[in-house]
């Protein structure tokens, strides 16, 4: 049997600049590229994943000299100078390939570690591949395993739990103050890009209303329209404080625009309902001593950056734990994979049949009364002969290298028919 290997080839945000990734990104779905892969000689099973940060091809193939060149050709198709290709692409075999796949599925290889979308993208890619019947028993098993590894990592580590951008941090804090963000109102002071981004996140989390206050009203109206909100002038700021819950300030003002003494009386009219102030302006817009007032929580850009840093280091700690889970699962998978191989299957089959013969002989021989040594041996020989003759055709079938059927399908079938158990189960 020619050496069959699990191969993973790909480019991602770490290995390849965006300009190159753009060229090879698969814009028009999986169908056509999957067809192109089928033309690469020696490919038995394959599947393709394409997201905005990576394009990866996983295949089970006969290993031969030109395979890597074929794969590189599939990826770059002459769009990139040949000598550069090797720098951009990574190619992993067997254990390394399995490990990489599990890392990707668990979001340990993502740009933002722990982001949750990747499993969904993986599943979608797998759906396309299996719809076109390009996956076989090995990849089916491997990909299903990668989903369960991702699930295990998510359940057993805190990797998905912390926010790693300023806007996420703001949402996280707002949730700790208000519980649900439903029906809460946000006031944007200044119409900067950062404030807009933070507001977008808050609206995504269910915030009910957005009010925009800006020096130039036109810009305020523009931004308010985007959120279906209300535009007000900066003079109405204190008045608006009576009805909003979250304030995001990002004006270019050189001085503080909201003093503690202005806010204090507002708390009485608000009946002490909590206020969350987010000051992302540099220099600061909001009086730092606002944080001393009861039921008011003030965070400036440094505070938020600290939250992000804290979350990042938390995730890194969790990533170590997750890495351990991945390694463990890789070992488990490889144990199964080796068990799948042809030789062990034949050995297991022989072992099973021998055991059956032995048991039956032990049952039968005592019942036959006094047998001479020669008679005994003859009976034993007969049982083994029957067994070998019965096994002859199945073993011939599995040893044959027909090009139509790949050997994994055959071993899998054989193991199922004869009830040979997987080693890891």
């Amino acid at each position, binding site marked *: 049997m020619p050496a069959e290997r699990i191969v993973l080839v790909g480019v991602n945000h770490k290995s390849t600049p965006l300009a190159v990734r753009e060229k090879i990104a698969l814009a028009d779905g999986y169908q056509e590229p999957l067809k192109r892969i089928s033309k690469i000689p020696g490919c038995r099973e394959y599947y393709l994943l394409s997201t905005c940060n990576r394009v990866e091809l996983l295949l089970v193939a006969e290993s031969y000299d030109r395979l890597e060149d074929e794969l590189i050709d599939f990826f770059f198709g002459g769009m990139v100078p040949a000598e550069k290709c090797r720098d951009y692409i990574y190619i992993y075999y067997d254990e390394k390939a399995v490990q990489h796949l599990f890392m990707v599925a668990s979001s340990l290889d993502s740009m933002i570690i722990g982001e949750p979308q990747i499993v969904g993208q993986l599943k979608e890619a797998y759906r396309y591949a299996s719809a076109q019947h390009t996956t076989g028993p090995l990849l089916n098993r491997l990909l299903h395993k990668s989903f369960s590894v991702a699930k295990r990592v998510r359940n057993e580590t805190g990797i998905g*739990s912390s926010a790693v951008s300023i806007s996420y941090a703001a949402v996280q804090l707002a949730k700790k103050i*208000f519980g649900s963000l439903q029906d809460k109102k946000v006031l944007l002071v200044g119409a900067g890009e950062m404030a807009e981004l933070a507001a977008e996140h808050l609206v995504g989390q269910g915030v009910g209303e957005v009010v925009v206050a800006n020096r130039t009203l036109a810009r305020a109206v523009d931004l308010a329209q985007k959120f279906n909100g209300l535009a007000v002038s900066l003079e109405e700021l204190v008045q608006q404080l009576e009805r909003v819950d979250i304030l995001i300030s990002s004006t270019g003002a050189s001085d503080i625009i909201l003093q503690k003494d202005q806010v204090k009386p507002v708390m009485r009219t*608000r009946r002490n309902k909590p206020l969350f102030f987010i000051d992302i302006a540099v220099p600061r817009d909001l009086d730092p001593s606002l944080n001393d007032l009861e039921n008011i929580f003030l965070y400036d850009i440094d505070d938020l950056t600290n939250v992000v840093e804290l979350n990042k280091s938390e995730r890194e700690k969790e990533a170590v734990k997750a890495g351990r889970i991945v390694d463990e699962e890789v070992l488990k998978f490889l144990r199964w994979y080796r068990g799948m191989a042809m030789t062990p299957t034949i050995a297991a089959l022989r072992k099973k049949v021998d055991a059956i013969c032995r048991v039956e002989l032990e049952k039968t021989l005592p019942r036959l009364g006094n047998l001479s040594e020669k008679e005994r041996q003859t009976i034993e020989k007969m049982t083994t002969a029957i067994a070998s003759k019965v096994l002859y055709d199945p073993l011939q079938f599995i040893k044959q290298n027909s090009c139509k059927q790949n050997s994994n399908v055959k071993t899998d079938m054989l193991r199922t028919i004869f009830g040979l158990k997987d080693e890891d189960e």
Partner: protein
Amino acid sequence: MISEISFLLFQTVLAVTFLACAAYIVFFITRKKEVRTIARWILIVSGILQTAYLISRYMLTGYAPVTSLHEAVAFFAWASTWAYLSFRWRYTVKNFGTFVSLLIFILLVISASVSRKTAPMDAALKSLWLPVHAGVSLISYGFLALAFCGGLMYLLQERELKSKRFGYFFSRLPSLEALDQLNSHCLTVGFLFLTFGIVTGIMWAHQAWGTYWQWDPKESWSLITWFIYLIQVHQRITVGWRGKRAAVMAIIGFSAVLFTLWGVTFLLGGVHIYAR
């Protein structure tokens, strides 16, 4: 026979509550949902066993099990347990169970450490008012105990948010809003029961001693406690006292409750002493 069963029941209650508390603490540390489900079921078992224990005490003495310090505290623990479980049925407040089960366990330990003897009761006090007055008062203590736990959690979480140094508690404690609502809910229910407890006490005093109010230390302290909670409820309704102030008040109020329950008996005496 009943006294042996009763004794064994109490030991079992102690052990089961310890398990519930331990499971809740494990959940607090590991944040594994399965552990919480287990903890919840153990606490429900503990609540049922506590009920059985109180019934066994009733069968033993022939009157409501609220006359000795041991019984009163056990009843207090029972009220807290069921107040929590009834509360749990309507809202979930993250990790609230850890704090409450710890409090219940502490109450049961206190109850275990005092004399469990039953004593005959003064004939003058035998009345239907006894279970009503003492029971209602202790149920109100149960809800006020929940408000106390919520207050502690609020202060811990508020400190994390104000200081901006997010330690161990930040991710494990619920939102401030949830804790404040819990405070409001438990306080309202607790205050209603407390008022009802004092009113029934007045009725009973009239029946037993012929006078409605005699400024006995326990009576005075109940009144002080009642006023503390009255201020809180009033301020919340009128000017919207909430958050940190409400949390601090819940803790002060609960200290007054504890003093009324024990401090008065040991330090000041009076007609309300427990049977010894």
